[in-house]
């Protein structure tokens, strides 16, 4: 069981993963004076949290900025191992660059790369700390790396350092994530300790006060309520979690069990079906066990019917159709999607690809979200 925000392979989170993992590095760069290069755009992720880069800090060399962009591009393509190797190379040359180390840490903090090295994320974060001081982004990176290694006693004071000042040293989504992380420590390490549960509840409520649609906070709160037998109360949290991240299989799994226990079998069945399809889609990356392109397309088509607001999976369906050469179906599906989400850039892009494919242009290979 992983309580960490954004640590599963839901479609939304998979797509956000790159952005999320690099948020810390991007935030540093966004605030950093740079030599001869424009700021690195946040590339779709939430606005970076306030950076505390010292005014007198040395400007980030243009080649570092350029290299980080390349690393980010590799990561976005799912080429995680290459991305990590490029990060190592960058850090070898620019040992004093906090941005370089934080970028390397970001790769190893990937929620989706199965061969990530949590210990490397920790050591890179510590190097960033040495090079750039106790900036919120660096501390967030370090706390996450420590948490992943169950070093809760080390992670917790760092989280306190970020969360407890008035006002907290981070804000927005990042603050919500940190509250959830601290709640997760209470739920794991302090499961049997007096006050552990209460601390977890307080942090989850604080997370939801900051980010009312924080899906992990809702899911965790629901799990706690289910454990207490408060099934109806849990349902309201699950509903909000599902609304916020309809592609999260953990939510549908819990939703199905909760509804089943309440005797609402028909509603439960729908969530069971969604969980089952999502699980089949994400449970394996191997050639022997993962669904082949046709099965994948069939699963995504079923998900479209039973979980239509999972927009990311809708995009996946179009990509799967394109992969199978079903150009007309892909075009129609992108039209349908755009009817529901007018002018949504990813859908527009895929529609464009479909139209070009119809005209005979090759279809670019989709990002499979895995590998490396």
């Amino acid at each position, binding site marked *: *069981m*992983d309580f960490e925000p954004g640590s*599963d392979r839901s479609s939304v989170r998979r797509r956000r993963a790159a952005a999320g993992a690099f948020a810390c590095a991007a935030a540093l760069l966004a605030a950093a004076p740079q030599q001869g290069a424009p700021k690195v755009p946040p590339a779709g992720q939430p606005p970076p949290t306030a950076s*505390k880069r*010292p*005014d007198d800090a040395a400007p980030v060399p243009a080649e570092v900025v350029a290299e980080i962009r390349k690393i980010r591009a590799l990561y976005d393509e799912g080429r995680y191992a290459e991305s990590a190797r490029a990060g190592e190379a960058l850090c070898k040359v620019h040992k004093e660059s906090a941005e370089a180390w934080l970028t390397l840490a970001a790769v190893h903090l990937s929620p989706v790369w199965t*061969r990530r*090295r*949590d*210990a490397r994320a920790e050591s890179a974060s510590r190097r960033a700390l040495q090079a750039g*001081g*106790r*900036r919120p982004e660096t501390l967030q990176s370090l706390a996450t790396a420590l948490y*992943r*290694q*169950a*070093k*809760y*006693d*080390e992670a917790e*004071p760092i989280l306190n*350092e970020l969360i407890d*000042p008035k006002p907290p*040293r981070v804000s927005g989504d990042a603050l919500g994530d940190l509250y959830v992380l601290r709640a997760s420590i209470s*739920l*794991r*390490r302090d*499961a*049997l300790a007096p006050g552990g549960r209460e601390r977890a509840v307080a942090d989850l409520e604080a997370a939801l006060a900051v980010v009312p649609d924080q899906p992990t906070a809702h899911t965790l709160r629901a*799990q706690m309520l*289910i*454990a207490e037998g408060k099934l109806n109360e849990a349902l309201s949290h699950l509903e909000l979690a599902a609304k916020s991240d309809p592609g999260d*299989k*953990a*939510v*549908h*799994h*819990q939703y*199905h*069990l909760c509804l*089943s*226990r309440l005797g609402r079998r028909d509603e439960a069945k729908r969530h*069971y079906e969604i*969980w*089952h399809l*999502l*699980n*089949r889609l994400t*449970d*394996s*990356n*191997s050639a*022997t*066990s*993962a*669904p082949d392109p046709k099965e994948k397309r069939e699963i995504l088509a079923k998900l479209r019917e039973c979980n239509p607001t999972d927009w990311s999976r809708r995009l996946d369906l179009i990509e799967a159709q394109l992969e199978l050469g079903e150009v007309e179906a892909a075009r129609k599906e992108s039209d349908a999607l755009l009817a529901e989400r007018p002018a949504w850039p990813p859908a527009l892009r895929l529609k464009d690809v479909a139209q070009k494919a119809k005209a005979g242009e090759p279809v670019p290979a989709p990002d499979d979200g895995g590998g490396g």
Partner: protein
Amino acid sequence: MRRAALVAGALAACAAAGAAHAQQPPPTQPPRSATGAPATVVEPEHPAFLERTDSGLDFVHRRFTTPSKKYLPEITGSGIGLLDYDGDGLLDVYCAQCCPLPGCPEKVEAPPDALYRNLGRVGGRFRFERVADRVTVKSADGTPRETPLGLGDRAYSMSVTCPDVDNDGRPDLFVTNVGQDVLYRNNGDGTFTDVTAQSGIVDAWWTAAAAWGDFDRDGDLDLYLGNYGLIDYARYTVCGTGDRVSYCSPDVLKAAPDRLFRNDGGFRFTDVTKEAGLVEPDHGGKAMAVIPFDHDADGRLDLYVANDADPNFLWRNVTGADGKMKFEEIAGEVGLAVNGQGTSQSCMGSDIADVNGDLRFDVYSANLGKEASVLYLRTDGDFYEDATYKSGVGNPTYLFTGFGVRFFDFDRDADLDLLQVNGHVLDDVRENDPNQSFEQVPLFFENRGDGTFLPVGPKLSRFFQEADVGRGLAVGDLDGDGDLDAVVLESDHPLRVLENVFETSNHWIGLSLVGDGRKSPRDAIGARVTLACGDKTQVQEVHGSSSYMSWQDLRVHFGVGPRTVKATATIRWPSGRVQVVKELELDRYHVVREEGGEAPGGSR
């Protein structure tokens, strides 16, 4: 200007906070080695398990690694079985052994599995002797003659099961292998006969687990084979980077389908997998442990299958009055397929028991490091809830890769404690993760009486401070003194024998159940015992497989704490008969034979 001042102030504060943090004392968590072992071994505060290195159980497991291939079975095997093969009332030990696989640099003859006879306590200590390849038996006319023991499987052995296949009151032996499995009939004279060829059990897959139960309720034990995959030595996928060969992820192998064999009597079996509806969903599952238990308390044995990196199965037995076995898969629906996050885990050794005293069975599976072992608590209705962390087992097991697991009441305080042996699957794991290592310490959890657990291993034994590569685990009363001992198989290591020496005034009761052999299996696998002693009621089942690749003492053993009143046992036999046995004295074993009228439900 004002904003700049604020930022500068904040930065100064941060710098101060940073400096303050740098001066803080080190974290309160003690330094942790990757193996989980303490820097120095400490004497246990409350000695509970003494390792007996002089017991004569000198079996040394070998996994015979092939560095150029790193075949997956090298990191999973093997198990042990506790059985009284010679009927002297003492548990003997059968040990599964591995052999060199194609490409193995060791050019030695494959060693056989080994059987050790329990000689009872000699000089106050356990004493075992290895049974030789040839033994002396009495001929019909009473004259002694030397004859082959009849065992000696030399394949790459995985699990050991010891069911009474022919209901003759003697445990037989079934050993699963990477390749064809082997069935031995216990001849009753101290020898065995290999009856594999006549049995109809044909299965060339790599079988990790086997489980026995009377699934069609016809009075004999049927066989469920938990298959993992197919090992094709000629076309084996070698994993690794550059020149470095590493063990592959389980995903590389295609899951092999599990099989169900109906016992037709006379050591003959029929494959009824398809007729019984055992069609695995999606891409199937790589079974590592199989436990038959009665999930829905309808008297029919269901099957929990712990799969490695695939969703687990719960095959609900829906066999009708015609006795034709039929199952339906419901793990996902009831919450046993995946963890609370909806994700498959690397489930390995497993056990099923009532851990929180609510008279319902809970399910536990050990997992890979950084997954934490999972405890599913039975809730209302047919459902299970992932209680891994709230039960206290999640955090201590998080960095451990668990294999053999077993719930038993080591201190007789009327709740079930938990032993888990560990060892990562990757012999080079530390190169990638300094938090984990191939060798890991075993863990022992004391039940706080309510289904929450505290890790107490180092307080109980030095054994829990020594890291190794734990795999098989069998628990039983080796010396018949009323407490439960343990035997642990570690990869490439001599067997570990742990004698329970915990001093307590708590009481206990043991039941040795004997089915009628016609409508219930003689060894009573599948029987459910509800024991009432004073204000305490407990429930246990006789399981035809549990832990990891190992066979347990089939006697049911209850600790009853300080209670001194006589106990009442209500036994629901596999036939469906319910028998109440009153006025059972404490602190001894009772043999209970199935009796009563016609079994209900018209079981065949």
